[in-house]
């Protein structure tokens, strides 16, 4: 179980469509400085897969992020990266979006449980 040293004042990162990001930014999640270091990524039709991968990799390696909330639709695009991920912190939470309800069969945690119990 891989763990890493996280700074005391950790943040929540968000990857999702505009509604998800706007909602969580309204709640006070957002952080953005002059160097354009952000803890969120708005994904739309024009966002390339490589950009999502890059953002995900950067959030998982940053020391100031404790939770990554990612829309399940976006998570499907980088499923292989999420399956490979084996750290405890930051934890990954797959969340439903406005157009795509939550599907537990696709969730990486549920998949892990299935593998563990042998019901897969």
């Amino acid at each position, binding site marked *: 179980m891989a763990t890493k040293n996280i700074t005391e*004042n950790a*943040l*929540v990162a968000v990857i999702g469509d505009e509604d998800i990001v706007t*909602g*969580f930014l*309204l709640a006070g999640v957002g952080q*953005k400085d002059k160097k354009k270091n952000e803890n969120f990524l708005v994904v739309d039709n024009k966002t390339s897969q490589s950009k999502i991968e890059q953002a995900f990799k950067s959030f998982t390696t940053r020391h100031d992020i404790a*939770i990554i909330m990612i829309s399940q639709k976006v998570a499907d695009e980088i499923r292989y990266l999420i399956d490979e991920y084996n750290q405890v912190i930051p934890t990954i939470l797959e*969340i439903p979006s406005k157009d795509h309800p939550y599907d537990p069969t696709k969730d990486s945690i549920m998949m892990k449980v299935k593998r563990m119990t042998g019901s897969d």
Partner: protein
Amino acid sequence: MTAQQQKEEIEKLTTQFFDELEYLNELREQYNELLKNGYFYLAKSRYSMGLKSLGQLQYPENIKSTFTITIDSDNSLSIHERQDKKKSPSSSSNNTSSSSSSTTTTTKRRGGNKESKTKADSDDESSDDESENNNNNQENNENNQDGEKKPATPKRGNKELIKKDPIYWFGIMTPSTLKQSQSYFKQSINLSLEMSNKIILLNVIEKQLEELKKNQQTV
């Protein structure tokens, strides 16, 4: 540890694992419901405010999160409201009379502007500020003459709130539905923290189970 004890330990951990998983699923249902409501009220707000008035175009250049998460020694997460380090030590001087407090605020504001802006800009704008502040002083004096005493703190408090609360990125007079949406998203953050703690716990139990099973095989 005997084989029997190991077996009992595995059974105990397996039961705990599924209990935690069940609780995680319950939390997940609540979380999904909160998000559903959040999206709904966000859509309602967008309907009343206009399509492009609630989106990434309104995000400011510099954003600071309103809370932080700390990680305890046992890897559990807890949420804390972010404390402003820049709070002025002279805030206790707000108890002074309204006229004197208004003058202190004007000098502070002038000083603050000068620091942040270039010389040329500051010269122009400080004169604007002066006239504005003079107007404010006049207003304050008029208020004093009328017998209404307005302390400077609520104004400053409002300004800090406007600066801090992300809802004001989208305007001063936002619909109540946006506030409702904000509240649902705030609640969902608390739940997401609880869910993360459960996921961490599940990971720990899983590792313990794996180790026990390995030991059992060797015995």
